[in-house]
């Protein structure tokens, strides 16, 4: 004889949450697209590490872990991790058996989000370890490696802005294609808008409040504190982007040069020759903290939209 609902002990929330996390993790790990992107990221890091050695560049950067595979790879990892996290369930019809189990939609949503977080943090950790070890192999001993975890956390926050945006588009449209294209269009639009605004407008500061690269400027190395070694600072470390995509780099810069400032500039491409116009100066600390605040604001708003759309969704499929 079966137990009635009244006699049935109410199972605790956590095992049910973990069940959905497990369900989602298996889906992510076995996704061919995800495996492809991770392989591509590793290939890019390898090339990034190997090229200078190939061209006999005998530089010894003091922070090799800020590998320059670019924000696009982070964006793509976010994209393949969550583009069909919710919408794919609707498209394949698997949402029906899932949502008829005794787990609330909020639990399903939180578990999917948590699984995405774990997948991204594990992937980045492996990539960072690979890049750091690779940097040591190629360039010899590196300085400031204690800041690698800080860069990793920053990059995870940056990626989660895109995770939230893509989840929200997928949740509203119930289409993986819309989620992927919508995310990509926004990513490209912000990159282009950033470049255009940085070239023609004096209002580059506005870019600090949209997802993406933000304004550009130069780290004022002259003002950094005296007790920090200045040898072997690479040129790339002086170039700063202030947006939510660069939280990792800016956090590292802030940790290394807490009192440094950044000269925000724009390049006037209409003058001959193009000239760099200085717009304003702000501290690296403000830039790092503001980009984190802006990132969290976007993450919370878009995750709320995604959750609300998922919670309200009627399953017509």
């Amino acid at each position, binding site marked *: *004889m*079966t*137990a*009635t*609902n*009244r006699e*049935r*002990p*109410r*199972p*605790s929330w956590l*095992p*049910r949450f*973990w*069940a*959905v996390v*497990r*369900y989602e993790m*298996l*889906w992510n790990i*076995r*996704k061919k697209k995800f495996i492809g992107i991770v392989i591509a990221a590793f290939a890019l890091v390898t090339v990034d590490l190997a090229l200078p050695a190939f061209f006999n560049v005998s530089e010894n950067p003091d922070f090799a872990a800020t590998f320059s595979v670019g924000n696009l790879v982070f964006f793509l990892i976010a994209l393949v991790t969550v583009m069909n996290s919710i919408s794919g369930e609707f498209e*394949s*019809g*698997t949402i*029906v*058996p899932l*949502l*008829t*189990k*005794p*787990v*609330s*939609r*909020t*639990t399903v949503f939180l578990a999917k989000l948590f699984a995405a977080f774990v997948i991204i943090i594990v992937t980045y950790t492996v990539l960072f370890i690979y890049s750091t070890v690779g940097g040591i192999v190629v360039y010899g001993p590196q300085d400031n490696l204690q800041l690698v975890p800080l860069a990793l956390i920053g990059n995870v926050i940056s990626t989660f802005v895109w995770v939230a945006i893509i989840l929200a588009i997928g949740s509203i449209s119930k289409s993986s294609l819309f989620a992927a294209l919508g995310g990509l269009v926004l990513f490209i639009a912000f990159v282009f808008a950033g470049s255009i605004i940085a070239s023609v407008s004096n209002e580059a500061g506005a870019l600090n409040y949209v997802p993406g690269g933000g304004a550009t400027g130069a780290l004022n190395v002259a003002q950094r504190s005296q007790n920090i070694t200045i040898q072997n600072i690479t040129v790339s470390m002086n170039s700063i982007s202030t947006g939510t995509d660069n939280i990792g780099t800016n956090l590292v810069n802030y940790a290394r040069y807490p009192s440094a400032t950044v000269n925000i500039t724009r390049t006037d491409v209409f003058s001959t020759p193009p000239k760099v116009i200085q717009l304003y100066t702000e501290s690296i600390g403000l830039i790092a903290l503001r980009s984190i605040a802006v990132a969290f604001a976007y993450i919370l708003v878009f995750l709320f939209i995604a959750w*609300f759309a998922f*919670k*309200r969704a*009627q*399953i*017509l499929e």
Partner: protein
Amino acid sequence: MELVIETNNLTKRYGALTAVNKLNLKVQRGSIHGFLGPNGAGKTTTIKIIVGLLRPDEGTVKVLGHELHGGKNEGFLQTFREQADSRLGIGYMPELPKFPKHLKGSELLDIYGRMYGMTEQQRKEQIPKLIEMVGLTGRENDLIGKYSKGMQQRIGIAQALLNSPELVILDEPSLGLDPVGMVEVRELVKNIAREGITVFVSSHLLFEVEQICTDVTIINRGTALASDTLQNVSGLLTGPAMIHVEVAQMSQNIINAVKSLPFVSNVTQTGNSLIIQVTTHEDVRTQVSKEITRAGGIIVDMSQKTSNLEDVFIQLVSKDQEGKTQ
């Protein structure tokens, strides 16, 4: 008698289309309740409301004692109201179920078992039993993506029974199965009911409902046309019943004698056979037999066509269609 499903004036609209229209459904504990209706009658929409996949526009739903939806009156708060625990005692197999292709059959059951809060011990005992019961032994470690439609249907039944439910809801369980699979599913449903589980099964297959159900609700255009025990619903047939008689030698005396019976409305002769239309649904073969014998006839064969669910279904649905078009 305790009700496991109870809907009151349940209504669901998709734009201008009313898919479910003031439906009052009552499913008694321990019954095998057939939910019968033509395609597009509102069966799947009703079931989706019952299992929490859709919200009704009006009316209430009570499943295993849990009030699921409060209609539109709750407004915005309805978004936050979700009684996931009410599903602890429900097993549900959707119409043409789709499961994640990247999972193995046994993995799927294990994960769903965890969602029900089953312990490892419970899962270890229950999953192999269910896999054997639905005939998937040897294929449980294959990816679901490699399963045939019939195998997906079987794993669908297994996951619906995973939590030892008190109510199993099966939406068109035979859809897409071959004849052997259909027979197996019917046997499975009967076995489930023998264990004291209430089964609510939707189908558009009359013979399937007739063979396995104890109770039936006939639905068309979102409205229940009849809802009772199978026997009572089958007895709803109105209009002439038929008696077929074959005699050794036909004569006018026999025809006149039959026509003289008060409940006979029409007699058609074909050779030595008579088709007698009667105005009653009672068994009147004895009276007909006596009258034919008195008129000198020797009866070779006699049968009364009793009303079955198919007749009732066709009659009710046709009447409903006529009523709607007038």
